C-alpha cells in the first residue's frame, strides 16, 4: 500500500488514488491522417517495464486531479510525482 505524494495535496494513502496506466501517450493531433497501425499503437500498445515506469494517477478521493508518477516497478518505490504538462523526468541509471 503506497503513500503517494499528490502534487496538489501532499502525501496520502493509496486508497485515495486510482492508477490509469502508462503516461506520456499523446493523442495523435491528426487522427484522420494516421495509419491504422499508428492509431492501433496509440490505442493498444503499452510498455510494461521491469524498472522505471511513468504512469498516470488520479486523486479520486481528494482533489480529483490527474498527475504523473515515476515508479520503480521492481521495488514499487515512487521516485517522483509531477503535474500534467510537466516533462518526463530524467532517468538516472
Amino acid at each position: 500500500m503506497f503513500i503517494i505524494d499528490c502534487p496538489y495535496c501532499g502525501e496520502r494513502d493509496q486508497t485515495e488514488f486510482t492508477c490509469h496506466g502508462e503516461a506520456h501517450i499523446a493523442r495523435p493531433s491528426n487522427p484522420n491522417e494516421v495509419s491504422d497501425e499508428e492509431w492501433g499503437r496509440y490505442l493498444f500498445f503499452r510498455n510494461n517495464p521491469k524498472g522505471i515506469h511513468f504512469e498516470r494517477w488520479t486523486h479520486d478521493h481528494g482533489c480529483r486531479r490527474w498527475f504523473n508518477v515515476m515508479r520503480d516497478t521492481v521495488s514499487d518505490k515512487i521516485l517522483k510525482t509531477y503535474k500534467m504538462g510537466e516533462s518526463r523526468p530524467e532517468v538516472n541509471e
Partner: protein
Amino acid sequence: MSNQNRTMYGGRVDRSKTINFVFNGKKYKGFQGDTLASALLANDVHLIGRSFKYHRARGILTAGSEEPNAIVQLGVGARTEPNIRATEIELYDGLEAASQNCWPSVKFDIGGLNNILSRLFPAGFYYKTFKWPPSLWLLYEHFIRKAAGLGKSPIAKNPDRYEQKFHHCDALVVGGGITGLVSALALGRAKCEVLIVDENPVLGGYILDTNSTINGKSCNKYIKSIIDELQSMNNVTVLTRTTATGYYDYNYLTALQKVTNHWKELSKTVPRERFWRIRAKKVILAQGAFERPLVFSDNDRPGIMMVSAARKYLNSYGVLPGKSITLFTNNDHAYSTAFEFNNKGAKVKIIDTRDNLSLELEDRCRKNSIQVFKSHSVISTKGSKKINEIEIQKVDIEKNELTGEIIKISTDCLIMSGGWNPAVQLLSQSRGKLRYDEILNTFVPEFSPQDLKVVGCNNGKFDLTENLNDAFTAGIDTAAELGKNSVDKVTWEGNEDISFTQAQIEPYALGKKEVTKGSKHFVDFQNDVTASDIFLAQREGYISVEHTKRYTTTGMGTDQGKTSNVNALALMSHIHEKPVDQIGHTTFRPPYVPQTIGAIAGRSVDHLFDPIRKTAIHEWHEKNGAEYEDVGQWKRPHYYPRGKEDLHKAVNRECLSVRNSLGILDASTLGKIDLQGPDTAKFLNMIYTNAWSKLEIGSCRYGLMCNEHGMIFDDGVTSRIGENHYHMTTTTGGAARVMSWLEEFLQTEWLDMRVFCTSVTEQWSVMSISGPNSRKLLSKLTDIDLSKDAFPFMKFRNGKVCGVDARVFRISFTGELSYEINVPSRYGLYVWSELMKHGKEFDITPYGTEAMHVLRAEKGYIIVGQDTDGSVTPQDMNLDWLVSKKKEDFLGKRSHTRPDTLREDRKKFVGLLVNDKKTVLPEGSHIVEEAKSQPPMKMIGHVTSSYYSPICGYPIALAMIKNGHNRLGEEVEIPLMNGKIVKATITDTVFYDKEGTKNNE
C-alpha cells in the same frame, strides 16, 4: 482425577482460580492462565484431533501460533469457529471445544482407513484425479468431499462485532519478547511514538520459560521492570493478543487484535476483534524463532512435541506432559529442557544425532544420571492414541546409514529439537531476501527494501547478551533516524543456561533409502506430507520449490508451514545433492496467521456494507408500496403493485397508463453534470459523436459518447442553458464514469480548454410526466407557455412549477408527449406530491424502472449497458444519424474506420418478434440460424432486451445479430435452456408509433 499432570508448584497459572471447560463433550478443569492445550495436557488428554488426509491421531506439537496439529472447533452455534489453535486459546469458564476431522469420534475414526489406504493418496493426488474424463472424478468425489476441509463453518450469522483502526506511529515493534521490549524501551526513552504488538496475552516471550538472567537479575523480574517503564510512557502503546498479519509496501502493516475472544460472554460494548491498519515510519521486527521438528518414522503421534513446547508447558503452566521423557535432538540448546524435566522428577533419556558432546554437557548429564545415546536416531515410534515406545539405532554419518542393534525405549513423551528457524514470514512479505545460514542450517534475514530492522532470534542470532545489545542499539539508531532525542547507552548482559549455537542438517537425510519405505516420516503435519511425498514430487519433475509446495501441499494450510518449510527444503537439498540455498524457498504471503473475515470486513457489514442512495422523493415511494430495484447504489422504484398485483400485472397497468393517459417517473437518479466555460461547445463536439456548435440556447440534444476504441459508453440529453452554460445528463450508472471521462480529457489532453464540470446529480429532483395528458396536467401548475409552438419537442424552458423555480425539458424516453420537470432537490417531494394531487383527474400513475424499460423498448430506444456491452459502435446500433460526418475529430471517430469496426458481419441492433406471439424470450438467449439437438450450433447473435408489450399485445425483443441490418424479415431460431426452440423474425427496432408523431404533439 483432575489435573493429574500438574507439578506440585510452579508455572504462572493462577491455581486459586479453577476454570471449567468442555472438550469433546467431556468436562474438565483448568486454571486461570491456561491455554486449552495446557489444560488438556494437565488432564492427560493428548489425542486432540485427526490429521487432514490420513486421519491419523494427533496431539499437541507446539505451544504457540505455529501449531499444525492441535486445531479445534471452538464454541458452538453462531459463534463457532473452526481451525483454532488449542495452543493459543486462552481458557475461559464454560469454554467448549471439539476435535475436527473425525467421525464418529476422535478415538474411533472411520477416516482413519485413509491411513491404511494411503497408497491412494500420493503427492499430487488432487492433480492426478482432477483430470478428464469426468467419470474418474465422479468416482473420487464423494470420498474426497467427506475427507477434505478443516472444521465446520457456522451456519447462522455471526453476532459478534468487529472493528478496524487506522494507526500512525514513529515506530512499530513486532514482537514483545525480550528483544522487542528492549528495542521499544530505547524508542520510548527517545520519545518516539511507539506501538509494540505481541500475539501472546503475556509479554516477555520465550525467555520467561528459562532461568536466564539479565544484568544480573532474574529475567522475569527484569522483564517486569521494562514493561512497567513502557507502560508509564504515554508515547508507547502496548498491545497484547495482537498478531501482525501482513507487511505491505511503505511500512504498511496489518495486525489482528483479539479483544474479547477469551471472554465467556458476547460483549455489547467491546468488539470481539480489532483489525489494525498501521502505517509506521520505522519497523523493528523482533518475532523470535520457531523450533523445527525432526523428520523420522511416525514422528506425528500424540505425545511427541517440540522441546520448547514441553519447556513452556512445564515452566509457564506447571504441566508435565510425560513422566518418562525422551529427548531427540541435534543441538545443545535442547539439553536445558532435559535438565529441567529431570529436576521435576521426570525420567529423562537423550538421543543425540551427534557423536561428540562438550565435556561440560557430558558431565552434567552424568551428574543428573541422564543416559545419552550419541550418534543415534529415533527410527520408529509406537502407541495408537499416545506414544508408548520408541526404537533407536546408531547412525553412521559417513555412510548415511543406520547400523547396529535396534534399542527399544519405553517413553510416554518424546520431545524433539531440530534447531531453530527465525520467523522470517513478515520480512519475506516485505519483499525481503533471505540467506541460508550453514551453521544454523536455516534461512535468516538478509535484506528488505522496507524501512525496517530485525533483531534477536528473528535475525538468526541466539546469544542473549548480543541480542539485548543489538535490540537496544536498534532502538537508539531508529530514534536517531527519526531525529528524536538521544538516549543514554546501556550495556546489557544476559545469561542463558545453554544457548543455541548450531544445528546439524544430517538428521533430515537419515536413512536415504529408508524414507521411501512404507512408514511415514512426516515433514508437514497439517497437510500430512511425508518425506516420500517430497521424493515422489522430485521424481515426477516438480523440482522447483514452488512446484513441490503446490504438488505436495507442503507449507499450505492454516499454519502455512511454520514448522515444515525448512525441513522440506533440506530434504530437497538432500535429494538433489545441492546446498539448500540453491534450492531456494517459497515466498511467504499474508496473512501470517489465519484472520477472520469478520475482522477484515470490520463495520462494513449489513446496512453499512455499501451506501444506499435515495432520491428526495423516496419517502413517497415508501408510503406507496414501491418495490425497489438497485441501480448502482440507488434505490429506484421497480414497480408499484396495487393490491395483489405481481410484477407482470403492475407493469402492464403502468405501461398502459402512460400510453393512454398519464404516468409519472422519479428520474432523479439520472446523472447530471453542469458544464460552464467559453470552450464548452468545442468540448462537447469532441466528447459527443454528433455536432453541438449550432445548438441554440433553450434547446436539447441527444448524444452518444464513445471511447477512443469507437465503442458507445454512455448516452444522454444535453441542453444549452446559456451562452457558455450546458446541462448534461448521463445514465444513472454511468454518472461517475462520465464525470471522470470529462475530467480526464480536460486535465490531460486539452489543458487549454476553459470548461468547468460540476456534478449536480443530487442537486436536482427530476420528475418525468409522460402520456397524452401530461400537457393538461402541467398547464394547471406552471406559468410556462406549453403550447406546441411556444415549447416544442427537444426544447427546455425555465419557469415556475407549483410555485417552485424549475427547468422543464420537453424530452421523452417513452415516445409519448413528456415533460421532465427539474426542481431543486429540497422541493422534489413537494412538487411530486402536487403533481400526484392534480393528476388525479387523469388517473396519474407512478411507474417504475421496469415499465420505463418496456416503454422505451417499444420505441427501440437503447439502454447503454443493456443493449450495448462496450463492444458496439453507433453504426452497430443503427445510430449513424448521431455520428457527425462533418466534424474533423471527436473521441472514437478514428476507430470507426478501423478494419474491425467496418467488418460486414458485425453484430447489429435489430428487433425480434417471436412467431408464436406468446413466448417472452429470456434476455441473453443465443440466436442461431438453425437449432440443433445439441451444441455446437452456429451462433449469430443474442437477445439484449425482451418484454411483453401490453400496448402491442405480444412480446417484443431487441437483439444483436450478425449483419442484422441486412436480414430484416429473416427467420432465426432461439434454443432455450429447457430444450425448447423458439422461432422468431428479425424486424426493425420500433414496435410502436413508428412515425414518431406522439412525441411531437
